[in-house]
C-alpha cells in the first residue's frame, strides 16, 4: 500500500477522488435519503392515523352530546343539569373547541367564550341545519372537525360543532417525532462506520492488485499475480497473468527465431570460410582447384542471398497493412500460368501435372503474392516427389470462398513434422533440402500470404504416399473483414452484458478475455516495433539487436510496458498509449488470428530485413 503511494507520488500532481470515498459518500447519501423518507413517511402515516382516531373519538363524543342536548331541549342554562359545565370539560379534555348553535344560528355555547351569543354563518352548518347533509366529519389540515345535528323528532333544532387539533391533543406525537429522529440519528452514525467498512472492503481487491502491479513494475516480472478477493479483481489478476504469459511466449519465440536466423545465415558463411581457408592453406592448389572452390563459394553466396531474399519476402508478406494489393483476379488463369512455369521442372523428373478446373473463379487477391504462394506449393510438390510421380491441382469455389488443392504422390510428411512444416527454417529432411536448394522459408511465406488474404492452409499427408495442401481463401476481402470485425464486437458485448445463469457466459467471457489479451499484446508489440524501426532506420545496426532501446531510459523494455499497463498516470505514457491505440485500430478484424508471438517475430523480421539491406548495400559497394 505504501509502496503504491510512494510510487505514484512522483507522477501524480492532482489529487484524485478514491473509489472508497465515493462509495462511502454514496452509501451515506443513500442512507440519509432513505432515513429522511422513512422519517417523514412514518410520521406522516402516524399523523394520519392519529387524525382518524381523533375524528372517531370526537364523533362519538359529539353524538353523545347531541343526544344529551336533545334530551334537555337545548336548554343549557337549566339549573338541574351540569350540561354547560360538561361541555366545557369535554372541550378541555379534547383540547379543542365545542360550539352549540341553535336553529336560528345563534351560538348558545362557545367553549372559547369569544363568540358566545353571536350568529354563525357557515355553509356547512346551514347544510346540516337544512338536512341537506346528515352531518360533517372531516380532517382539515391538522384539525378534526365534526358538525352534527341536534334532532328532536326528525326536526333539526340545533347543531354541535366540535373541533380538535390533532397535534395538541396528542403529546405522544412529539415524543414520537423525537424518538424516531434519535433512533435514525443513531442508526446513521452507526452506518457511517458500516459505509466506511463497505468502501474499504470493496476496494481491497483492487488495491491488492495495484500493489502487486507496482511490485512487478519494479522488475519482478516472473511473479504471478495472486487471484483473490472479488470476481473483478480475480479477473483482473487472471488477465494480467495471461498477459504476462503471452509476453514470455513472445519472448521465447523471438529468441528461437533469432537463433534460427543467425544459424541459417551462418551456415553458408561457415562453408565459405572453410572453402576459403582450405584454399589459402593449400599452397599447391592450382587454377582448377581455385575455380572449383570459387564456384562453391559463389553457390554458397547465392544460397545466402536466397535466404535473405526469402526472409525479405516473408517480412513483406507478413506486413499486411502495407503489403497487400488486392485486385480482382482470374484465379483459373493464375493457376494455369503457375503450372505452366513449373511444368519444365516437372518434366525433368517425368512428373505429370494435372489441373482440375471446376468453375471460373475471380477473387480479390494480391496476384503477385498469391502466385508466389501457389508456386511454392507446386514447386514443393515437384521437389518432394518421386520420379514418374503425379501432381494434381484443383480449383473450386462456393459463394464465399475459393479452394485450391495441390496433391502429390511424393515422399509425404511424417506425422510428427506436420505441425512444423509451416515454421521458419524447418525442414523435414535437411540433407534433401540442401540438395533441392530450399531455405526452409517457402511454406512460411506461403502461409503468411494466405493468412494475409484472410485464408487458411491445411496439410494432409501420409509418409511415403504423398501430401495434399488445401487452401481456402475468401473471394472478397473487405466484406469478410467487416464481418469478422462484427463477430468480434458481438463477442465483446456478449462478455459485457450476458446475464447470469447462462452457460455461455463463461466461455464468451474467456474468449473476450483472450482477445483482450492478444490485443493488448499486439499493441505493445507495435510499440516495440516502432522503437525497432527508429533504431534500424538510423542505420546503427550491423548486427541483430533484438532488444530495442527503451524510450524513457528505463532498464528493460518489458518493465516499460508493465509501467504503461499498471495504471500509473504519467502524461508521457498517456500519450504513448494513445498512439498505440490508433495504430491498432485497423487490425481489429484480424484480432482472432493474431498471436503476439507472431507479432514479435515480425518485428524481428524487420530487423532482419534491415540487416539484409545493410548486407546488400555492403555487397553492392
Amino acid at each position, binding site marked *: 500500500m505504501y509502496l503504491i503511494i510512494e510510487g505514484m507520488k512522483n507522477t501524480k500532481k492532482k489529487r484524485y477522488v478514491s473509489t472508497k470515498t465515493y462509495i462511502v459518500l454514496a452509501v451515506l447519501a443513500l442512507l440519509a435519503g432513505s432515513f429522511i423518507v422513512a422519517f417523514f413517511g412514518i410520521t406522516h402515516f402516524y399523523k394520519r392515523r392519529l387524525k382518524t382516531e381523533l375524528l372517531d373519538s370526537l364523533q362519538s363524543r359529539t353524538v353523545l352530546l347531541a343526544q344529551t342536548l336533545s334530551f334537555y331541549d337545548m336548554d343549557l342554562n337549566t339549573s338541574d343539569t351540569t350540561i354547560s359545565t360538561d361541555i366545557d370539560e369535554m372541550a378541555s379534555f379534547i383540547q379543542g373547541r365545542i360550539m352549540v348553535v341553535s336553529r336560528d344560528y345563534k351560538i348558545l355555547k362557545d367553549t372559547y367564550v369569544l363568540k358566545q351569543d353571536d350568529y354563525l354563518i357557515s355553509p356547512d352548518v346551514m347544510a346540516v341545519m337544512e338536512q341537506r347533509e346528515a352531518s360533517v366529519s372531516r380532517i382539515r389540515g391538522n384539525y378534526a372537525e365534526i358538525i352534527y345535528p341536534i334532532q328532536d323528532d326528525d326536526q333539526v333544532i340545533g347543531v354541535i360543532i366540535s373541533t380538535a387539533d390533532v397535534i395538541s391533543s396528542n403529546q405522544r406525537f412529539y415524543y414520537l417525532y423525537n424518538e424516531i429522529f434519535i433512533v435514525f440519528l443513531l442508526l446513521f452514525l452507526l452506518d457511517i462506520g458500516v459505509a466506511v467498512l463497505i468502501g474499504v472492503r470493496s476496494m481491497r481487491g483492487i488495491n491488492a492488485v495495484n500493489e502487486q502491479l507496482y511490485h512487478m513494475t519494479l522488475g519482478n516480472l516472473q511473479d504471478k499475480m495472486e487471484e483473490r478477493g472479488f470476481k473483478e479483481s480475480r479477473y483482473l489478476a487472471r488477465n494480467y497473468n495471461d498477459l504476462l504469459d503471452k509476453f514470455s511466449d513472445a519472448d521465447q519465440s523471438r529468441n528461437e527465431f533469432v537463433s534460427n536466423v543467425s544459424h541459417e545465415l551462418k551456415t553458408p558463411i561457415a562453408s565459405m570460410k572453410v572453402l576459403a581457408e582450405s584454399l589459402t592453406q593449400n599452397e599447391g592448389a592450382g587454377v582448377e582447384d581455385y575455380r572449383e572452390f570459387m564456384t562453391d563459394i559463389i553457390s554458397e553466396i547465392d544460397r545466402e542471398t536466397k535466404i535473405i531474399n526469402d526472409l525479405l519476402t516473408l517480412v513483406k508478406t507478413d506486413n499486411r497493412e502495407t503489403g497487400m494489393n488486392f485486385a480482382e483476379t482470374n484465379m483459373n488463369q493464375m493457376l494455369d500460368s503457375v503450372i505452366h512455369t513449373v511444368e519444365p521442372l516437372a518434366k525433368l523428373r517425368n512428373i505429370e501435372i494435372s489441373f482440375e478446373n471446376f468453375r471460373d473463379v475471380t477473387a480479390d487477391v494480391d496476384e503477385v503474392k498469391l502466385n508466389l504462394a501457389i508456386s511454392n506449393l507446386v514447386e514443393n510438390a515437384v521437389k518432394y516427389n518421386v520420379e514418374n510421380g503425379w501432381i494434381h491441382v484443383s480449383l473450386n469455389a462456393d459463394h464465399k470462398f475459393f479452394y485450391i488443392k495441390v496433391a502429390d504422390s511424393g515422399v509425404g510428411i511424417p506425422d510428427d513434422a506436420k505441425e512444423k512444416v509451416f515454421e521458419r527454417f524447418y525442414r523435414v529432411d535437411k540433407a534433401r533440402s540442401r540438395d533441392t536448394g530450399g531455405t526452409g522459408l517457402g511454406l512460411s511465406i506461403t502461409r503468411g500470404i494466405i493468412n494475409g488474404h484472410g485464408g487458411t492452409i491445411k496439410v494432409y499427408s501420409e509418409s511415403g504416399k504423398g501430401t495434399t495442401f488445401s487452401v481456402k481463401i475468401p473471394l472478397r476481402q473487405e466484406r469478410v473483414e467487416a464481418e469478422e470485425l462484427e463477430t468480434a464486437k458481438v463477442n*465483446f458485448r456478449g462478455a459485457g452484458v450476458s446475464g447470469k445463469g447462462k452457460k455461455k457466459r463463461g466461455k464468451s467471457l474467456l474468449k473476450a478475455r483472450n482477445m483482450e489479451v492478444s490485443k493488448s499484446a499486439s499493441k505493445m508489440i507495435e510499440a516495440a516495433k516502432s522503437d525497432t524501426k527508429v533504431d534500424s532506420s538510423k542505420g546503427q545496426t550491423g548486427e541483430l539487436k533484438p532488444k530495442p532501446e527503451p524510450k524513457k531510459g528505463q532498464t528493460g523494455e518489458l518493465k516499460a510496458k508493465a509501467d504503461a499497463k499498471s495504471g500509473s498516470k504519467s502524461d508521457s505514457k498517456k500519450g504513448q498509449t494513445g498512439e498505440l491505440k490508433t495504430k491498432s485500430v485497423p487490425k481489429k478484424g484480424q484480432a482472432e488470428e493474431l498471436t503476439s508471438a507472431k507479432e514479435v517475430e515480425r518485428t524481428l523480421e524487420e530487423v532482419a530485413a534491415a540487416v539484409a539491406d545493410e548486407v546488400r548495400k555492403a555487397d553492392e559497394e
Partner: protein
Amino acid sequence: MKYVRRMKNKDMVQKFSKKKNRIFAAILLGCMAISFAGCGAQKQASTEVKKLSIAQSAGTVQLYYIVKDNQDGTGANELQVLPQDSRYQLKQPDSIASSVEEVMDQLTMPSGVIFTGYTLDADSNVRLRFSVADSVSEEMLLMTKAMIVRSIDGLSQVGDVALEFHGTGAEGTAVQDGVEIATYTDSSFFYYDDAEDSAKNVGDVVLYLPNGNGSLKKVVANVTIGADDSAQEAVLRQLIAYEVLPKGTKVNQVSLMNGSATVDLSEEFLKDTGSISPKIVIYSIVDSLTSLPNINKVQILVAGEKVEKYHDEVSIAGPLEFVEPE
C-alpha cells in the same frame, strides 16, 4: 472490453468525480439539516385573523347583497352575503337619517322580508323594522340580518343597530315568537368556514390584573385563542404575557372537572414574583379563570404536584374560589 472502456473514460470520470463529490456532500448536509429542522421545531400558533379590508373613502359605504349559489351541483342553494363590486356614494353623507334610508333603499331584500320603517334615537342608535312572511327560512333571515347589519354598520355615525322582525310566529317559521328584537354589530356574525378558522380566534375575555395598589382590577382584554390551546390556557398565557406570573412560567395543562379547573404550571411559577405580592398573583389567576363560564374553583399545581403555600404566604393546597377584589 470493460476495462479498456474504463481506461478511455478515465479522464472524463476524474473530471466529474470532484463535482460529484461536492454534490454528494451538499446533498448529505442538506438531508441532515432537513432532518434536524423537521424534528425540533414546534409549530407556532398563528394569530392571523381574516380581515375584510375594503378601502374606505369619504361619503361612501360598502353595501352587501345575498346570493344563492349553486356550488356543489346538488340543487341546494348555498346562501352567501357578498360585498357589492363598488362602494355606494351617499347623496347626503352628513345626515344619518337620510343615509340609513338611502342604504335601505339600495339593499335588495329577499322576497318575504319587507322593510317597514326605522327609528333613530339621540345616541344615533338605529332600530329597523321588518315584516317577515312565513315562507322565509331561518337561513334567509340570518343572511338578511347579516346583509343589513354589515351595510348599516358601514355608516360611521351610526351607533348600535337593532333589528325588529315581525312575523306570524307560526310553528316552523323563522320568527318564532311573532316579534324578534336584537342588537347587532358587524362582529355579531361569525363567518365560519372550517376548523382552522374556528381554532384561531381573537376575542375579548375578562382578566383580573394588578392595579399597582396592591389590589386587582377587572380588565377586558383582547386575546387570541390559538390552535393548540383552550380559553383557560389563553387566559393564563395572557397573564404571563402581562408579567403577572413570573417570567418563563409555562402552562403545562388545564383540565376541567365538575366546575373546578386544575391548572398545572411549570416550576418557574415558584420564582420571585417581583413587585407583585404572591397573593395578587394567585388571585389574578383564580379570579380571571373563574370569570370564564362554568369555572367555580381553581386548583393550582406546580409541575404536577400540589404546593402547600405559595411563597410561604398563600395557601394553594386546595381549590380556591373567586374573591372580589377590594
